[in-house]
């Protein structure tokens, strides 16, 4: 299930759930359904009683591990080395426990030094990751008016002005941190959970990416989304003439590419009350339009609570490996 609990189902029940997941995506995002052979393949993956599954030899993809250098039970550097040496990570990510650019800005010289030290000790590429987290810029945590309080009061203009003010602060922080880490030797930056606070959050990310791309032509810039749909907390913001509120993955990819991202991570949130088969079917149906027109690598978010992986910290490996294989097989992803 989407919450990680085990459930016993017949093949026909699994097929019914896969079809229902596809239908849910089609209805919600007005996207084309999966082909019959793709639905059959998903059913085969989820109806198998095996404990583990994987892609075909030769069809492997790049794995970018966000949050890998957080220092779960060792130091941050040891975490990175463990991911490189023990988990065979293709690239790793240094980050701070707070994982927000606003918080990181206050300690950025220390983070830059950690990056410099890590670069001496690791061979695989190391990116730096954090969240735009626009909500931290409004009161009481920040200086901008709190739009979440103003909106229910019907004070829409003030709520929009607060978000626009917060965007300027967030862009400055993200550029500041990005530059400091690039100058310390980082191979890239990951704007993780972009759009979590809505369209203004996404706009700030795109603008920061644009500045960093102009300054560092070969710097890895990854924009990973918070969800499948950009919420219109502001509603009137655009990027290069494209209204950001209401964008689905393909349209998110277009603006991310235009802003200079070299990797894009669509995210489709898990419904914990539905089965893993239903969730992965819905997720791949929503992301498939991205694959058809992408000119940059698509690293779909297939972690806890997104991309068909259950929302639990202690994920069953059968659920993770099925989601991993299903997304790669059906979508021909560039990475996860």
């Amino acid at each position, binding site marked *: 299930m989407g919450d990680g609990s085990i459930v016993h189902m017949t093949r026909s029940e699994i097929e019914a759930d896969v079809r229902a997941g596809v239908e849910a995506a089609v209805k919600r995002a007005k996207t084309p359904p999966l082909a019959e052979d793709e639905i059959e393949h998903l059913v085969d993956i989820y109806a198998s009683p095996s404990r*583990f*599954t*994987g*892609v075909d*030899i*030769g069809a*492997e*993809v*790049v*794995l*970018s591990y966000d949050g*890998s250098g957080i220092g*779960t039970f060792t130091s941050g550097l040891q975490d990175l080395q463990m*991911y*490189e*040496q023990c*988990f*065979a*990570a*293709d*690239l790793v990510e240094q980050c701070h426990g707070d994982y927000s650019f606003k918080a990181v800005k206050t300690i950025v010289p220390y983070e830059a030094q950690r990056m*410099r030290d890590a*670069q*001496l*000790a*690791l*061979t*695989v*590429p190391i*990116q730096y990751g954090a969240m735009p987290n626009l909500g931290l810029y409004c009161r009481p945590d920040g200086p901008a008016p709190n739009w979440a309080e103003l909106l229910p009061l019907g004070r829409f203009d003030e709520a929009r002005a607060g978000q626009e003010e917060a965007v300027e602060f967030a862009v400055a922080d993200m550029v500041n941190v990005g530059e400091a880490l*690039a100058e*310390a*030797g980082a*191979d*890239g930056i990951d704007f993780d959970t972009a759009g979590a606070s809505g369209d203004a959050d996404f706009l700030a990310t795109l603008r920061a990416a644009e500045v960093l791309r102009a300054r560092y032509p*070969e*710097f*890895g810039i*990854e924009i990973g989304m918070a969800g499948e749909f950009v919420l219109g907390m502001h509603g009137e913001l655009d990027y290069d003439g494209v209204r950001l509120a209401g964008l689905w993955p393909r349209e998110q990819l277009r603006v991310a590419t235009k802003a200079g*991202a*070299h*990797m894009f991570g669509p995210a489709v949130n898990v419904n914990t009350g539905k089965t893993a088969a239903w969730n992965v079917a819905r997720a791949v149906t929503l992301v498939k339009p991205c694959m058809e027109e*992408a*000119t*940059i*690598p698509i690293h779909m978010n*297939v*972690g*806890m609570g997104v991309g068909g992986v259950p929302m639990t910290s*202690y*994920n069953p*490996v059968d659920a*993770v*490996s099925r989601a*991993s*294989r299903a997304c*790669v097989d059906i979508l021909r992803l*560039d*990475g*996860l």
Partner: protein
Amino acid sequence: MFAMPVAHGCASGLGGMRAAGDLVARMQMARGMRLGEAKTYVAEQLGVTPFDLSDPVLMNERRGELGLGRVTTFELSHPDDPTAIEAKGNIADLLGLEIRSVSLLEERMHRRATKG
């Protein structure tokens, strides 16, 4: 931590520096290459086929020959292999990329010598 990195790595990962996953990742990050293009490019530089890039036995040999860094194991030691930052210098040459940490090292070394 067990389920996510280990399960994904075994199910669909290119194998990092056990194989050639880190090299393909670099082409995606630096040049925005899609997977097929990045695999083809890296395979050409290594003198192998794209299919070989996830083969840990073959890639371990090529990495050793080219000085690209290898995973440390308790059965074997590689005292003559390049260190991590040295290996990245070789990777930069192989892939035709500027790796910033390598450039920074070179900029900051031999200061007395370069200043006369």
